[in-house]
């Protein structure tokens, strides 16, 4: 271990440090723990290269006009001004995104937890099977079958069913009529939203301390719901937090299912989300600067939401 110099000893005693002094101490600590830094280095390199840099780059690009093929041109706050003042579609997609997130985020979060809790007591093989069954829709992206169910053809599954029972007289254009589109996309989104959060809960429930449940039973826990509230949830802070971040942030970045079912852009942008708006500008219109600006806004929204989740889940979290 490196020798501690007298200056450092003095610094450690001080209550207020200048920036230079702080930096000196940090550097000193890093040197001491260099093995640890070496161990996280591989991840750090990739994280910086593929996450930090692109995020930084898109923040810079959001102040430019950039069409991919020609070099970017600085335009100041123009993109942001246009987004909030001129672009009606942005407002629609913002509204849709929130609608999506508010419905699918919490509902799918709850569903994840409830299903994980349900299957927790099953024997291992059955549990594994059900985990796969629940997770399959997310895994295999089989939401395409919904396209067939909601087909606007009179022989589409839902239409032919309703026609047969005389509930409608002519086929309904489920996927191109603005009245139904958003609801259908939200529904399908929910159907395949048992994602990573669900897996985290399954794992989290497995790691509970059984002695606590027994102690609780002795101390007068009357039913499984009491057990859930007083014993299980407090132990699961980590998984709950992780699940919430995954579920809700993924709820904000929906778009794939919408694009696959109702197309991008959808009729009258009725199921347009921020992610789709970004891809519309980035891919179709070759306006990367503007697309970056939207993604920065989306990034900020997600950060803010994460803060809110943190606050909400504070009671369950021990660390």
């Amino acid at each position: 271990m490196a020798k501690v110099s007298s200056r450092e000893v003095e610094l450690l005693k001080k209550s207020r440090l200048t920036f230079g002094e702080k930096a000196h101490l940090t550097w000193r600590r890093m040197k001491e723990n260099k093995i640890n830094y070496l161990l996280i280095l591989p991840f750090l390199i990739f994280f910086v290269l593929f996450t930090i840099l692109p995020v930084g780059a898109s923040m810079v690009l959001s102040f430019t006009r950039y069409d991919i093929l020609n070099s970017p041109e600085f335009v100041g706050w123009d993109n942001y001004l246009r987004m909030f003042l001129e672009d009606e579609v942005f407002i629609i997609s913002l509204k849709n995104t929130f609608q999506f997130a508010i419905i699918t985020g919490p509902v799918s979060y709850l569903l994840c937890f409830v299903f994980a809790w349900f299957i927790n007591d099953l024997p291992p093989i059955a549990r594994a099977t059900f985990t796969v069954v629940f997770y399959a829709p997310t895994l295999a992206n089989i939401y395409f079958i919904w396209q067939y169910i909601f087909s606007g053809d009179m022989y589409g599954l839902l239409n032919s069913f309703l026609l047969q029972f005389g509930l409608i007289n002519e086929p309904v254009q489920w996927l191109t009529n603005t009245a139904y589109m958003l609801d259908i996309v939200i529904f399908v989104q929910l159907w395949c939203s048992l994602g990573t959060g669900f897996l985290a809960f399954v794992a989290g429930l497995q790691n509970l301390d059984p002695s606590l449940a027994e102690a609780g039973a002795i101390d007068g826990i009357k039913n499984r719901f009491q057990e859930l509230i007083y014993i299980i949830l407090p132990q699961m802070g980590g998984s709950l937090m992780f699940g919430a971040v995954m579920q809700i942030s993924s709820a904000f970045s929906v778009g794939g299912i919408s694009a696959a079912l109702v197309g991008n852009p959808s009729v009258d942008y009725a199921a347009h989300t921020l992610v789709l708006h970004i891809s519309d500008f980035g891919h179709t219109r070759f306006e990367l600067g503007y697309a970056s600006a939207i993604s920065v806004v989306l990034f900020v929204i997600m950060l803010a939401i994460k803060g809110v989740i943190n606050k909400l889940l504070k009671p369950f979290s021990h660390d």
Partner: protein
Amino acid sequence: MSNGKMTKLAFRMILVLLAVSVFVSSLSVFVLAADDVEAIAETTEAVGTEATSESEDSGAKKNNAVVVGGSDKNQTESVDVEALKNLYIEGFERKGEYADYFLENIKYDKKLPEIVIDPASYTSTTAGVELLGEFEGKKNVLKVNKNGEFVYTVNVPETGMYNVELTYYALADRITRDLEFAILIDGKAPFSSSESLTLKRNWGDESDIPSYDPVGNELLPTQVLTPKWMTTDFYEPNGNYNEPLMYLLKAGEHQITLKSVSGTLVLAQIRVHNDGDLVSYDDYKSKLDAKGAKDSTKFLELEAEDYTDKTDSIIQKAYDRSDPKVTPYSVSKTALNTIGGTNWNTSLGRINYTINVEESGYYELSFRYRQSFMRGTTIYRRLYVDNVVPFAEADTIEFEYGNGYQYTVAGREKEDGTYEPYKIYLEKGKHTISLEAVIGKMAKASRDVEQAVYKLNFIYRKIIMITGTAPDTYRDYELFENVANLQAMLLQISDTLKEIKAEVDEVSTNAGGESEILNTLALQVDSFIEKPYTIPSRLSTFKDNISSLGTWMINIRDIPLQLDKIVFAGADAKVPNYKSNFFEKTLHEVRAFVSSFIDDYTAIGGTSAKDERVITAWVGTGRDQAIALKTLVDNYFTPQTGIKVNVSLVPLAVLSKAIVAGRGPEVALHVSRTEPLNLGFRNALVNLKQFDDYDEVIKRFTDYATVPYTLETTDVNGNKVNKAFALPETQNFTMMFYRTDVFDELDIKVPNTWDEFDQILPVIQENNMTVGIESGISTNTFFTFMMQNGGEVYAADGSGTMFEEQYAVDAFTKWTDYYTLYDFPLSYSWYTRFRSGEMPLVFEAYSHITYLAESAPELSGLWSVAPIPGTIDSTGKLNRTEGSSGLSGCSIVVNKKIDEKTRKQKEADSWEFLKWWTSSDIMAEYGNRIEMAIGPVARYTTANLEAFELLNWTSDEAAAIKKQREWVKEIPELVGGYYVSRSIINAFRNVTNNYTNPREMLFYYNDQINAEIWRKRMEYDLSVPEEANN
């Protein structure tokens, strides 16, 4: 405690099970195609009624009458079932087909004296026939040009069914498809296919020496026509008969007219004959035994890919790396070690081999083959020895289904259960052995099922004419009263289906699941007969079952076979073990796995060194396309110009990113329609108008084909901008497909104008049928109407739309009216509805002609294509303009990362390449190669006018397509044009979903479109109209 816990556990299990069952059922139900689900439901339903219907049947046999449930009135009425079964129903049977003709006249079939006709002895002729003194070793032959027609007077000694045999020499032509031929007897075609007969050509490899790419993969040899004298009878073109076509000739004098519809050939002999049945194998053997024929002792092994010649260019050598005993063997490289496979799958495809027999005697013939393509089906081949089928059994050599490679000795199962190989006698010396694809023992089933599909669709159509396609299930339509002869039709078709099933079961030992659809349908039809009031509610499953039957019908005609070796073995010859054992297979798999890390399977051909004149071309479609291109480049382009081309298979979505990174290609092929302009006005593509001969080159295409690639406008300073960024490769456009039989039935004519179209609409719709003018909503129909109203879609300089003009409003209203007033379906599957006839008129891309011909054989001759309707303008002229957007093209990419001089050189080379690539010969050869690789369905929709003539379209098809093409106008692409289609479709949906005012909607969205276009144009310093600045 434990008891309570158990209850809780049980409760939770129930909850979980509930949730799971919801999930699982949703999963399974939706993953299975709905037809399957419904089919399953139908089967169970039908099986349930089986018992009753059978007892009913036996009852019917006893007193020859059956009680038919008079649905609501409870009235009973006796019907003579036998009489109904024999009732002739107008329109139910397809008339004029060979099948009919054959059945009517089969009683005349017997051995007859032959009549040999000297081709020069024709009695009358049109131009296009010419006598040649000598040609390729034959004297006094007749050269017949395209459309050459000539008549012979023949004195027939005896009434009977005669085959017509030609000895002909097909002249090599620029057009390489089979020759089309027609035979008329006394001026009339006795059956419809007699006017569209085909004669095969002879194909071979250009060179016997294999060629390899730099990596060591063997390249497919180039196919060339190798014309020779060929002698053959005529066969039914749909491949449904193993036997040649027979013509009834009564004793006396007859006029036989021969006509070459396409292609040029030389005729040496015409023989009208009936040689009677072939000798059976037993007679063949005993006759030879009597002559003292002995078993041979020799052994002869032939690699199946070493053929001499063949009848189709599409039958090609193939590589197979899946088996360790395929020879020549290569674990990772392409070694062409087999022949056929899925490309040797249509009737009459024939491969000839030349063998040298060292010792006279009997040989047993065996094959190493693969037939893992058609599950549970036996595939047949006909064997010729020196162009003669030696005995009857050689007509149908069997190749059973199995996984991987199999080894079989041609032979038959004897009555005592032992297997007897055929002994084929071969004299010492050279022989020609040929194998020909035949449908074999499935022929009758295939013919019958074709009739059955036609009839079932007929019944379906008759029913929906009364009930509509979405019947009210609670209403009794009294179908037996309202649909003429429905009961008779159902009784007849039920019998037919059962007969076919029995036939199929007899022929194939392991037909199993696939033919089960026959039973399902028969049971369904039986229960229709018994409970006619249930028909409306089960109509959609009926329709699904019919289309499954149609699929099965196409499957049994698909007769692929992949051959590795042909072996001739004498009696005591030692035959090596051709089956690979477990260890050989394992070793093979391991080696294949290891080499997958070493070999690069993605490179198409080789790549070239950096210092040469070399350009890179990206192909965005598929591997077959890339290989075809690479072969053409190596064969023609590089030798001619010295420019090498690296071909890579890259999805073109990454093109713009690759360009930014400076890693783009020099040339991009198969680029989608919108891309060139999008990249072009952002200076990523080379302006092709800078090349002097641009104007010359674009004469290869229609006048409008280059429109979407052209930017002709002015910039903000008023300077002219005139650029083009791509050359067209393919051009597809919409045509009108219609069912001739339904049109005849309804007594309506094919509409030439939209007014006529509007007049026939009520007739079609009154009969509960519909019309489909676009299977996916796109702006093309709107633009078509606009242009037929005499206007343009966009302002001449591309700076805005013309949608505020009155003609645009009229066009938009007309378009949306078809959906709001006439209730056209917004979304449909054109193919199934056209096939069943419920949509007898559809507008579809012309490339679907081949698809329909291939996949709906029962409709052959019952549909046709015509140009889309037009509008009569104020001067009385018919304007049939079609707004189209079916282009793809090729572009040159700008590379900013290299110095000026190299760039100029590369661009010039690339331009050379584009010119070569879009030239007619290359486009045609490429198109033909693609068709060889993938089949007729992939017929190339070339934009090159001359190349189009060289593709395999029949004369009639080509004429119809060209008629439409004259009127096709490609819609221009605009800067910011992506906003047009989305906004117009928004407007359209608003009108059709919410019944809003079309004019208002069009204007509302038009403002948005123009705003976006102006914004984009300003961004790129292009001129905008005055109003844009306000």
